[in-house]
Structure formats: C-alpha cells, structure tokens
C-alpha cells in the first residue's frame, strides 16, 4: 500500500516535470507523459521516496510553497545585496572563515535542503557535512561570529525551521 501511494505521488511529480519540459499540452502528450511517468516512478520510487505519507501531505506542500516564496524573494535579495555592497566597496570588506554549523534534522532531504539553501545564497558555501557530529562546515564571506550556535542563528536557522516542517 505504501509502495503504491509513493509510486502515485512520484509519478504526479514526474508528470508535471514532463509537461513543463515539453511545453505543450496536447492530448497525446498527456497520455504519453502519464504512461512514462508511471513506468519511471515504479522503477525509482523505492529509491527516491522515503515515506509516502509525507509526499501527499497538504500541510507540507503549503510550507514548501511558503518557503519557496520567502527564499526566492526576501532571503536571496538580502544576501545578493550584501555581497554586491562588499564587491563594490573600495576597501572590499571581507572577513572569510570556515565555521561549524550544527543541525538537528533527521531525514536526508531536510539536510540537503538546508545545505543547498546555504550554498545558493551568495556569501556562504557548504564545504563538508559530518553526519556523525551533525554539523555542516560552511565557508562564510563575512564571519561575524565563529561560535557554533551563534553562527547557526546567523546563517541557517530560518532554513532549518522550514526544512524541519517540510521534510521531517
């Protein structure tokens, strides 16, 4: 049962991807896309989907959309503006260092979300992950604080809050 629902959930996502990539909604496209996405989903669902219940939860999808809007507009704009100021400033005020940032999420997707959110904002790059000690090693262009918890508050607390709600 869990397997069937995970296949259905994954094939809907793949179908959306097919239509978005193809860029045409003709009846034959819908048929071919549905067949292909069900086949591919039935082969890859056990690898990709961790828990089928999470995939069909409406609450998690609402949080995903909210996070996407917040991240792509407010957080990205702030980070870009910060780095642009640093580049155009005549003195180039950078204070680079590698800080340790702990995390408290469990699933692989949540970890990946946090790490990619940190990397995608300009100024911070995840260099390595330590699964046993549950920390990211992050290169930060302007390290205001180097203590673990304080750096976490500065860099990744918002990402972690949403990642926990979406994936954990």
């Amino acid at each position: 049962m869990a397997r069937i629902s995970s296949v259905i959930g994954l094939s809907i996502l793949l179908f959306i991807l097919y239509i978005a990539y193809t860029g045409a909604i003709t009846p034959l496209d819908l048929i071919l896309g549905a067949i292909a996405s069900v086949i591919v989903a039935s082969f890859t669902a056990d690898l990709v989907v961790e828990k089928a219940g999470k995939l069909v939860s409406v609450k998690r999808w609402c949080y995903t959309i909210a996070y996407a809007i917040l991240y792509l507009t407010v957080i990205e704009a702030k980070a870009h503006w910060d780095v642009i100021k640093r580049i155009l400033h005549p003195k180039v005020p950078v204070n680079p260092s590698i800080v340790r940032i702990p995390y408290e999420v469990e699933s692989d997707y949540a970890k990946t979300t946090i790490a990619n959110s940190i990397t995608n904002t300009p100024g911070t790059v995840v260099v390595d992950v330590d699964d046993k000690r549950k920390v990211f090693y992050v290169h930060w262009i302007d390290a205001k604080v180097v203590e673990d918890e304080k750096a976490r508050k500065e860099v990744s607390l918002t990402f972690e809050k949403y990642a926990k709600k979406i994936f954990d």
Partner: protein
Amino acid sequence: MEKRLICLGACITVTAFILAFALIYTGIVPLAPTGNRPLATMFLESTFNAEKWWIWAGSPEVVTSILWDYRGIDTVYETTVFFLAIIGAITVVRTMKLLPETSGKGKGLTVIAKTITKITFAAIPIIAFSIAVHGHLTPGGGFQAGSAFAVAPLLVIAALSLRLLVERGWEKERLLALRTTGLILIGIIAIIVPVLAILRHSIAYIMQNQAKLWAPAGLSAIVNVFGIKSLLSGTLFWLNLSEFLAVSAGLSLVFVLLAAPTKNFDKEVKVQ
C-alpha cells in the same frame, strides 16, 4: 626543450592562419555566406510540404527527416556500427564478474550529493523520453535522448555505487537484450512499409516513410491514436522510440562495464 615547444607552437599557429586564408580565398569554404545552398533549400522546402506529397517526409524537423527518411539506411548502418562496437567491448570483458564479492567500506560522497543524484535518477529518464517522442517535432531524437538517458546510470555509478545499480537489475545480459530489442525493432520498422505494399500488390522501398509517385505505399503522417488526430510523421516516431531504447541501453551497458573494478580483471588473468 621549452624553446623548441614555443617554436613549434608559433609555427603551427602561423600555418593555421595561412591555411585558413588559403581555404577562404580559394573559395573552398565560404566567408560569411548570406544564404543557403540549393540542396539545403530543396530539403527545407520539401520536408513539410503537403502539396509535394511525393517527396515530403511529413515532419517539421528537417534534421530527423533527413536522418531517418531521406538517408534512412545510412542511419541503420550507423546504429549497427555502434552495436558492433559494444559487442566488441563485451568480448573483451566477457568472463568478468561485474561486482567484487565483498561490498566496499568506502565512505562515498556526502549526503547532499547522494540525495540530489537520487532525484536526478528519477528525473532524467522522463526528460529523455520527452526528447525521444518529440524527435520528429522539435530538435532532438532517438540518439540524443539515449545519450541524455545514459547520464542517469553514470551519475549513480559516480555518486552512489555500481553495486546499487546492478542489484536494481541493470545487468549485462538484460541491457544487451534491450539493446538488441531496439535494433530488431528498427529492422522491423524498416521493412514494414515494403511488407504492407506487397500485401496490397504494390511496391515500396526499404526504410520508406511516405508514399511516392512511383511507390504508392507508406504510413500516413497523421494517425488516429485513441480517436485523437496526431502528427506521428509515419515511421519517424517509431524509429526515434526504438533508437532511444537501443542507444540508452547500449550506453548504460558501456558505462556499467567500464565502471567494473579492475581487481576482477586481475583474477581473470590468473585463471587463464
């Protein structure tokens, strides 16, 4: 030593420029042409021209039309050459086991790379399928789609492991069987129009797509699929689909074989 290399580089550069000048000013290659050659214009005008139905291919994609219709047999032989190269590659490693007996103790890549690879492993086949079925409508086709598909196993081998791929059924024999199925399907589609023509007491060529004046048999460009009128361009759609199957299985097979650990090679040498 360094002086010699610098001299050689300078000589080669000067020669290249002189050759380029010579090629252009003897008229062998064109200098910024502003129009097509007559042959290109002929192909571009007749491929999707329903009024000249005796030389059309029924597809808006001129490249695919030439590839699978006007020069179809050439492409079949090209696919065969690729198949023979894979057969040769398998001959080299025919008795070798793909996996080591014990699983590796390596740490592998980080959780980020592994998760993203899992997502792309599901997403790439869908994109490749879209490229394949729209091969007669938009740029792309069977070979391009197969190459795109083969990236998925390559990424899994690099980021996760070969063991995972083989245990999920990507075995040597199965991939070779899929590859052969693709080639057989291409062969069947190549002779399907002549067979239909013979049944109707008419004639047709091998790899013929649309009807000609002197060979009035062919699959129609617009087909009813479940009651929906769809532009499948005769054989082009099916040829692209078969080529997609053949190339994706063949390239995945090559990647799986190339990723097999060299320790297994050494064992084979000792046995012999």
